[in-house]
């Protein structure tokens, strides 16, 4: 068994991070030049970390699978980025941001980590603004904010519906500055296919050059994973279609514990599936819920056009069930409520799997111009995809797989259970508990990358200054490369009948049906068997065309799907183990009489950190969650 030591600093909540920084070990500037760091991923966390580490003087090598670091999927985040600036004078502060996240995460996150991310949130906004990120402004020239799902203050900074893109391009620009300065070397179009561990420490990676097929070795004193989430396990999700879990999964199989894998956020407002062959679901920003009202017809199977249904025959079910928060309830609550109405037969649209998001009243009150200013690009996108005009008729939306709160287990220093291996941004588990609040992912990714990891990594690296550059010809690299080659060979040699994409689609359906918005024991057990069967079918009937030593998109896909087929089982195992409902994890067996999630704090107030155990059932390690500063409460939005 591994030991989980979260290394939380002593002292009052508000002083932990300060105390940590005051006591942390530093690396002398002359020694930084001699230390190599590998960063995988170039989203907000990866590009942020790489540029900050470069600025500090380390030698950084950065990898991404896209052709350019500017394409990492942080680019697609729409609504905004939170910070406790209190620019609206509405009583916001670091503690309130912290508390909203702890409550929003349904008391399944670590207090100290959450408080720290709230603390650095203001620095993130300062930094992005200085980098030239064009956040929305007031006429007086100050920054504007808006309120976002699940909170009652206005703390979300935004750049229309493209906040993620603008923050990512800011991160890309700081990365470019370091590439020019020579501290960072960029390796695009690379898949990380193996982690190299030497004497118990992460010391390198094996990559595949996606253009030439070449297998490459890269060594470093530390490895940072900034590889995002695994929501594409559902096949249809709001993620980029090439987003994958492979790097994190390789780390897991080398000994890094995987925490709370079943905690997946289903986003309430995505464009519903339109055809059988669809490859992804497009998100419509949650900010739309600030002005849009969600409703379904009061009458089952009402097929009249939305505009023909009179006011008294509309059921604004979120406003009805949650009068205090109304349409702004957190994502998990909004998603389940939509599913509940559709399952009960009140859904709209061609498939009945959609609800209305209506701007009629907002347009009447604020004018079309004002709505266009706020959401113009989202409305255009919706119209381009569906052919429907949301200025004239309600949008139709439905929940979709979106964000994974689970991820690699990390301690306060963001280090995994493998010394020298760090995980930041969405790839770790630490800050969002069982549910993430809107506009917190950009905040966490940027905070981890720019302001937390660069501090905490030095406590590990300060012990490594005597280690010379790690050679790549040792037996551990030989072994890792051999494993990679054998697996690629195997994928190519099955020569069966079905494509990797077809397996992925089937896996996604199983996960969506049984390990999605709601789960129950019988369904999860069934899903586990189904995933196992599908996996054995994959390894006996997969078809990959082309060769390994060449550009081969089928082979890339096959490797990723192979890993998803294993991760899916771990997600199910975790969901089975946690017999309570909390946040996005809704076990049907554990609900209140009026259908709300019911936590069981006496039994499940812990982080489930799963340890790889060869082919056998994974080992469950528990990190108890201690709440010293907040009182555990029922999470109510009524």
């Amino acid at each position, binding site marked *: 068994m591994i030991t989980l030591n979260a290394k939380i600093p002593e002292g009052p909540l508000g002083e932990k991070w300060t105390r940590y920084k005051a006591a942390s070990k530093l690396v002398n500037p002359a020694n930084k030049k001699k230390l190599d760091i590998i960063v995988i991923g170039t989203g907000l966390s990866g590009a942020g970390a790489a540029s900050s580490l470069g600025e500090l003087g380390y030698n950084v090598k950065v990898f991404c699978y896209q052709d350019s670091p500017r394409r990492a999927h942080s680019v*697609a985040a729409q609504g905004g980025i939170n910070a406790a600036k209190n620019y609206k004078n509405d009583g916001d502060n670091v503690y309130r941001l912290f508390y909203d996240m702890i409550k929003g995460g349904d008391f399944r996150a670590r207090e100290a980590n959450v408080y720290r991310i709230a603390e650095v949130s203001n620095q993130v906004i300062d930094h992005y603004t200085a980098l030239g990120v064009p956040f929305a402004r007031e006429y007086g020239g100050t920054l504007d904010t808006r309120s976002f799902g699940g909170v009652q203050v206005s703390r979300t900074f935004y750049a229309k519906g493209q906040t993620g893109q603008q923050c990512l391009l800011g991160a890309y620009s700081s990365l470019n500055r370091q590439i020019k300065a020579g501290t960072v070397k960029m390796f695009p179009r690379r898949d990380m296919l193996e982690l190299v561990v030497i004497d118990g420490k992460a010391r390198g990676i094996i990559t595949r050059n996606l253009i030439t097929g070449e297998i490459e070795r890269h060594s470093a004193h530390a490895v940072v994973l900034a590889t995002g989430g695994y929501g594409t396990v559902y096949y249809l999700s709001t993620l980029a279609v090439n987003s994958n879990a492979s790097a994190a999964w390789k780390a897991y199989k080398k000994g890094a514990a995987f925490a709370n894998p079943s905690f997946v956020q289903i986003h309430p407002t995505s464009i519903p599936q339109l*055809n059988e062959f669809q490859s992804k679901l497009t998100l419509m920003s949650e900010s739309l819920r600030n002005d849009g009202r969600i409703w379904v017809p009061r009458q089952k199977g009402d097929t009249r056009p939305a505009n023909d249904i009179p006011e008294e025959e509309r059921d604004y079910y979120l406003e009805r069930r949650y009068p205090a928060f109304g349409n702004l309830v957190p994502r998990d609550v909004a998603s389940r409520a939509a599913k509940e109405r559709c399952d009960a037969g009140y859904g709209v649209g061609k498939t009945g799997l959609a609800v209305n998001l209506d701007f009629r009243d907002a347009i009447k009150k604020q004018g079309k111009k004002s709505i266009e200013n706020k959401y113009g690009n989202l409305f255009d996108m919706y119209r381009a995809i569906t052919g429907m005009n949301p200025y004239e008729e309600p949008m139709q939306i439905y929940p979709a797989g979106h964000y994974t709160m689970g991820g690699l287990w990390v301690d306060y220093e963001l280090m995994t259970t493998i010394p020298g291996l760090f995980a930041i941004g969405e790839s770790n588990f630490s800050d969002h508990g069982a549910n993430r609040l809107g506009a917190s992912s950009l905040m966490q990714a940027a905070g981890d990358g720019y302001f937390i990891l660069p501090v905490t990594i030095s406590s590990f690296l300060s012990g490594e200054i005597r280690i010379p550059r790690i050679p790549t010809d040792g037996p551990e690299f030989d072994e890792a490369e051999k494993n990679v080659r054998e697996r690629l060979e195997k994928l190519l040699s099955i020569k069966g009948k079905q494509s990797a994409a077809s397996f992925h689609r089937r896996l996604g359906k199983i996960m969506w049906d049984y390990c999605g918005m709601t789960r129950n024991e019988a369904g999860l057990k069934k899903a586990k068997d189904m995933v196992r069967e599908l996996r054995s079918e994959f390894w006996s009937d997969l078809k990959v065309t082309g060769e390994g030593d060449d550009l081969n998109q089928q082979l890339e896909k096959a490797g990723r799907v192979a890993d998803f087929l294993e991760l899916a089982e771990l997600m199910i195992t975790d969901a089975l183990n946690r017999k309570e409902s909390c946040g996005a994890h809704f076990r049907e067996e554990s609900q209140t009489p009026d259908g709300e999630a019911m936590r069981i704090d006496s039994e499940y107030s812990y982080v489930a950190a799963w340890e790889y155990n060869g082919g056998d059932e994974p080992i469950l390690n528990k990190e108890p969650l201690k709440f010293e500063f907040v009182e555990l409460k029922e999470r109510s939005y009524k």
Partner: protein
Amino acid sequence: MKLRLKIWRQKNAEAKGAFASYDLDGVSPDMSFLEMLDLLNSRLVSESKEPVAFDHDCREGICGSCGMYINGYPHGPVPGLTTCHLSMRYFRDGETITIEPWRAKPFPVIRDLIVDRSAMDKIQVAGGFISVTAGAAPEANSNLVRKHSSDLAFDSAICIGCGACVAACKNASAMLFVSARVSQYALLPQGRPEAKERVRAMVEEMDRQGFGNCSNTGACEAQCPKQIRLFNIARLNREYYKSY
């Protein structure tokens, strides 16, 4: 829908490419253009033929990975859409669709519809940034920025770096791409201290990478999926003159 696809196939940068024709049925008007290509590829794989290689990722019009000529237009005939957002509703049953990779000297073909756009990254590395180290930023509201300037900066900053402007230009000019970034920073007070060095470095790198010059035909603006405006190029020129 049933379509005839004429697609450029090319093994690598050195190989001689050629068009290949495919008949594809079962296309639904709800599909996106890339889903239509997915369908073609799944058929090709089932026939043990080499699928068509193309770059794609977010499939929601924001990452800038995808891009190809569709019937001669970068990203296809509908203004303001990337290839991934282009719906098959815009095509007719029985239509022949010609699909080619970006054609521009600085974008060598890697395979089929995939081209090497690293020249665009190199221009950004040359100067597409504001030099501020993490930790050094002043409080965000200490610099007031006129809303109008900030909004204009945003309109330039939304470039997704797809390369359609270069592909649309008869000179393979990257002026719209470069001007978008230069404009974003030129319009913000944060960007002013390095304005001269930035514009010179980016223009110099643009020339070094072999992109052509602007002759004001406006094809780039017409084909830009984010509808970045031509006046950014005027601002780029102004910034460039001012830098000497």
